[in-house]
């Protein structure tokens, strides 16, 4: 029985271009206080454009209705649980939004005199310090724009370190459970990829690793806990094996939500890692970005950090460009400061003990789901669960129903689906991470929904196979969208 949602009225909304009408306007600019100039004479006729063909013209009322109606067609954290594995879809605190919009911070220009930017630089310095403390590393760069960008930055630093020692080496080892950005990053950084198999418990096979690490291996890219939510218990040994051969341990920090205040990657052997501020540190996903991917390093990698770096000078904080071994810039300016402000506000709100407490609740929530769902869904890896767990659709597959379909049926119950078919090492994977900001009531509703679906799979599988039923948009034809891509609106041919 579906308890969480009932169907509700939801309006149709055309595209802006279909609502547009010549002469409608949603803006007004103040009058010019200087003489107008004729564009064609000043710029040259060839440089001046005609009108922007088919660009929309709508009033303020239509604009606000348009976007408000569209927003009502989205699911969101503010509406309910997103059980997406490794996404850490936790509550996005609203005070973060307010402080990010404080005028002095929001309007700061990256090239304004440093003496007039001390406030924002202090914010960045405070965040760097907090992240270094949380990760147990020696220095942090806030420059990378997102997790994948952070990975790229971190691997470039590994390359620079090894180059400085005479040999950049040829390949990166990546576990078969890794997120797709890891091998893509390796390729962008000019490294070949070698896959490392997981053992039966879903952890890195240490013997295999020992065999695989040779003088051609630059680093192992590891997520800990891994994408099964399992802590790599041999992590110290893994780090030793790598370091003995002069290789580095890169840690993908996507799953830090299981470790904050409990264990620090810098303490268990990581040389370099990235963090996802939009995961562990609550900055909003906003429908797909922006993120921010700070990178934290141990001392031996500091010379290679992107430039510039925040440094102390006479007048306070200053940008130091004198970094001869730096890998250079990975983006213009200093980073996604708007997200830094939000992440710092999150850290300040929790405090040290609060951050640890949040981790405890995150792991409690995931274990609670595991225990209640295990009787109904196969859990292939029996190792202890931290912040997320991965079920397999094996039992349901016997009735002809797979993880993707169960996920779609969850929508009818009022939930966003879990992560489908990832990690690849679990066939028919159902990857679930609740985070600490879910109440027991919401988790119970989620459990009830999945138990009910398990029953439906056995008794009325068709209901699950053709889900979702109750959404205003039913399943979309992704095949035609890919075969015959229509990537923009065009005016109808008359």
């Amino acid at each position: 029985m579906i308890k969480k949602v009932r169907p509700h009225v939801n309006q149709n909304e055309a595209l802006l271009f279909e609502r547009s009408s010549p002469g409608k306007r949603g803006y007004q600019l103040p009058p010019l206080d200087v003489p107008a100039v004729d564009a064609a004479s000043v710029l040259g006729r060839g440089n001046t454009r005609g009108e922007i063909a088919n660009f929309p013209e709508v009033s303020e009322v239509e604009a606000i209705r348009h976007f408000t109606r569209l927003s009502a067609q989205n699911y969101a954290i503010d509406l309910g649980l997103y059980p997406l594995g490794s996404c850490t879809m936790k509550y996005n605190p609203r005070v973060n939004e307010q402080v990010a919009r404080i005028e002095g911070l929001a309007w700061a220009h990256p090239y304004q005199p440093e003496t007039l930017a001390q406030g924002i630089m202090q914010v960045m310095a405070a965040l760097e310090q907090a992240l270094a403390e949380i990760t147990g590393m020696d220095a942090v760069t806030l420059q990378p724009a997102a997790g994948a960008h952070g990975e790229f930055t971190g691997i470039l630093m590994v390359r620079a370190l090894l180059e400085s020692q005479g040999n950049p080496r040829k390949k990166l080892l990546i576990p078969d459970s890794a997120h797709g950005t890891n091998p893509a990053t390796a390729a962008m950084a000019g490294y070949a990829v070698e896959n490392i198999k997981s053992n039966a418990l879903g952890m890195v096979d240490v013997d295999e690793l020992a065999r695989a690490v040779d003088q051609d291996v630059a680093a192992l890219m590891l997520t800990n806990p891994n994408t099964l939510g399992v802590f790599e218990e041999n992590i110290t040994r893994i780090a030793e094996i790598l370091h003995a051969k002069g290789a580095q341990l890169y840690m993908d920090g996507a799953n830090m939500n299981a470790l904050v205040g409990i264990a620090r990657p810098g303490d268990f052997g990581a040389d370099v890692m990235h963090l996802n501020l939009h995961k562990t540190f609550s900055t909003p996903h906003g429908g797909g970005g922006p993120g921010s991917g700070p990178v934290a390093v141990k001392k031996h990698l500091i010379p290679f950090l992107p430039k510039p770096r925040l440094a102390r000078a006479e007048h306070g904080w200053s940008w130091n460009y004198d970094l001869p071994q730096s890998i250079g810039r990975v983006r213009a300016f200093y980073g996604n400061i708007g997200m830094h402000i939000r992440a710092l506000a999150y850290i300040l709100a929790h405090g040290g003990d609060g951050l640890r407490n949040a981790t405890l609740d995150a792991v409690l929530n995931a274990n609670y789901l595991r225990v209640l769902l295990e009787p109904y869904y196969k859990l292939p890896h029996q190792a202890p669960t931290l912040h997320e767990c991965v079920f397999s659709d094996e039992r349901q597959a016997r009735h002809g129903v797979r993880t993707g379909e169960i996920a779609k049926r969850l929508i009818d119950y009022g939930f966003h689906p879990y992560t489908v078919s990832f990690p690849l090492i679990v066939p028919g994977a159902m990857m679930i991470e609740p985070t600490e900001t879910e109440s027991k009531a919401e988790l119970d509703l989620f459990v009830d929904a999945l138990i009910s679906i398990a029953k439906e799979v056995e008794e009325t599988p068709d209901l699950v196979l053709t889900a979702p039923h109750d959404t205003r948009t039913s399943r979309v034809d992704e095949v035609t969208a890919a075969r015959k891509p229509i990537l923009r609106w065009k005016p109808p041919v008359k």
Partner: protein
Amino acid sequence: MYPEDLHYTKQHEWVRASGGTGTVGITDYAQQQLGDIVYVDLPKMGTSLEKGKVMGSVESVKAVSDIYAPVSGEVVGINDALATAPEKLNESPHADGWLVKIKLSAPDEISGLLSAADYEKYVAEEETGH
């Protein structure tokens, strides 16, 4: 089930040899595994292919699969129809959904491939292995 006039590989490609030319495609088993094909990436005319090496890829909505050249030679024909109608690969993998024609540089390679019967047996083993 699998046409007898074709030769097969364990990577699920097939070759139809005729004179010095081979027509190449992927098998019915492969297209079933991939699901609805949305795009086919083929080598350009004149490309030199080496047996066993990647020659292109096939995309479904959620997956990409490399295609390996079953035999060596020069690409002398490309199935242009697949550019606008990739579904042909699903509908007729052994005939209309052919991928490229190759001028065989080493015709003996054909004898090293699987016969229809052997391929069918191989596929059956793959299925139960799952």
